[in-house]
């Protein structure tokens, strides 16, 4: 017993990720934390997307299940789980069965190397970014097999579209990533890195987010990645594989119930994953704003307040909404529920304001805040843009993003050569 506790405690105070330190216990804890956090994030994202999209489109969105539809994602999840799981009679049953799991596995495995903080990652790999790109590119296999196994025309076309689309945009994505890796080699030590934590540390050492490095090269690289990542995750305006007005639902037309929800889960975790890559590579990962310009204990204290204040603000918002609920007895339970939710948020905010906690949570908070900004962008795109056509999508990928990516890469190398 003593041994186990010692083993558990031996990791505390380490400045390495549990995977690197080789601590199995904490690695498992981190895996569970990431899994739970991701599931919560997907559920929250589901609600937020509906609400934000609804408000962009002058409607209310879900309002019935729970106050302001807060319980709607849970109701939907229940519905999907209880729904009959249909398998088309002419489908290739094994492949049909496996395909969603490939997508989900690919989307979740990526988070092994996502650095939520200097030590808050499951592990830090020597080839972190390569691993992320590689594993996230595996999801296309799931999509292709899903489309093929359904043995139906629309899914097949969706699968063909998605395989061509994702393979093409990976190229542009890779070029943008390589330009960042070149930037990491401008450290005082003079060696670049592929490790996700190393990339953030390089930004820290160089005193700038890579989006501002060699202005505007970093910005252009970021822009290429930001476009390619939308295409990689099959989201509007690049949602051709599941274009609902053309292919009904694309590659998952024949899927229903639980298996469909796996695709849904994978789509949203893939969105979070690629946003994490963008945040890590260009936006300084877990670093708070102006870590170099605004140094000192006072600024540290000031920025450490943000997580708590954010939750307090959300709590205040919930309290305000609760006070505006109709006073009719019919709404009493909903009002109480919303007030309870507000109380939970305020409580979390208060805990996060407590200095020891806030110091620990800070990194994760800034990382999540940056990722959340990307999530909002995704929703915004969806509300604004029409859909590209397939040939135009290919044109954008091969004729715009790829040459620009190459130019950025060469210019970055040149600039780096002179700076060095």
């Amino acid at each position: 017993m003593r041994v186990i506790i010692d083993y558990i405690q031996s990791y505390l105070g380490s400045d390495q990720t549990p995977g690197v330190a080789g601590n199995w216990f904490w690695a498992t804890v981190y895996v569970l934390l990431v899994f739970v956090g991701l599931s919560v994030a997907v559920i929250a994202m589901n609600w937020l997307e509906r609400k934000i999209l609804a408000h962009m489109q002058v409607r209310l969105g879900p309002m019935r299940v729970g106050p302001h539809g807060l319980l709607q994602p849970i109701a939907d999840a229940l519905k999907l789980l209880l729904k009959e799981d249909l398998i088309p009679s002419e489908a290739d049953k094994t492949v049909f069965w496996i395909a969603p799991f490939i997508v989900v596995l690919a989307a979740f495995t990526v988070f092994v190397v996502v650095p939520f903080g200097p030590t808050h990652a499951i592990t830090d790999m020597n080839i972190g970014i390569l691993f992320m790109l590689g594993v996230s590119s595996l999801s296309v296999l799931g999509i292709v097999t899903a489309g093929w196994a359904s043995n139906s025309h629309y899914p097949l076309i969706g699968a063909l579209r998605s395989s061509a689309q994702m393979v093409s945009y990976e190229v542009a994505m890779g070029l943008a990533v390589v330009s960042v890796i070149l930037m990491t080699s401008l450290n005082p030590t003079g060696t670049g890195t592929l490790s996700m934590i190393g990339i953030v540390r390089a930004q820290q050492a160089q005193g700038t987010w890579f989006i501002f490095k060699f202005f505007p090269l970093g910005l252009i690289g970021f822009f290429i990645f930001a476009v390619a990542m939308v295409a990689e995750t099959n989201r509007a305006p690049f949602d051709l594989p599941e274009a609902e007005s053309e292919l009904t639902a694309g590659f998952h037309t024949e899927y229903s119930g639980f298996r469909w929800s796996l695709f849904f889960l994978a789509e949203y975790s893939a969105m979070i994953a690629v946003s994490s890559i963008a945040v890590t590579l260009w936006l300084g990962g877990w670093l708070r704003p102006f870590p170099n310009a605004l140094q000192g204990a006072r600024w540290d204290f000031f920025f450490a307040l943000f997580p708590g204040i954010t939750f307090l603000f959300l709590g205040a918002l919930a309290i305000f909404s609760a006070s505006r609920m109709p006073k009719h007895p019919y709404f009493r339970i909903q009002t109480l529920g919303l007030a309870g939710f507000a109380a939970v948020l305020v409580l979390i905010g208060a805990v996060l304001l407590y200095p020891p906690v806030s110091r620990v949570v800070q990194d994760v908070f800034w990382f999540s805040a940056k990722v959340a900004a990307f999530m909002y962008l995704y929703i915004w795109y969806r509300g604004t843009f029409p859909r590209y056509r397939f040939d135009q999508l290919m044109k954008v990928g091969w004729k715009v993003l790829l040459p620009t990516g190459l130019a950025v890469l060469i210019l970055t190398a040149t600039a780096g050569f002179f700076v060095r």
Partner: protein
Amino acid sequence: MAPVATPFFFYLLAATMIIGGVLVITRKNAVHSALALITALLAQAGIYLMLYAPFVAGVQIILYAGGIMVLFLFVIMLISIERTEKERQFNKQWLVGIATAGALGGLFIAVYTKGKSLFPEGRLSYPESGNTQGVADLLYGQHTGTYMFSFEIASLLLLVAIIGAVVMAKKRI
């Protein structure tokens, strides 16, 4: 990594690879074969990681599993497979093929039993660190870049392959 785990993971991954390989050459349906091959390739990436070749593992995942196999699946979907599934799967000289492979296997067994002593049972002190930068040094290093020329030749090979594939596959140029 704790040393106890190494044999376990090795045998797990090796078994996955062998089973995957057997499925590749026995499945009727080409898509099933491709999926089995992907499993084998991913297991092999794991083996690369065990051999402290993380960069090769990453390239294996990106290029093989994410690129080449998608191409395979794409082509399998383009062509009809319903008919080939009902046809004879093995060609007429399958017996000769098996015999040849058996002879080759015998050769391998002979070589490995004779040459076993060449490999001192892994008792050497292996460096346990990432070596991505070492690979990069060999490929592009200013003084150590032994393979820079070969690398450029490889890029030319890829260019030729791209043009060849386009010429082959395009209906009308």
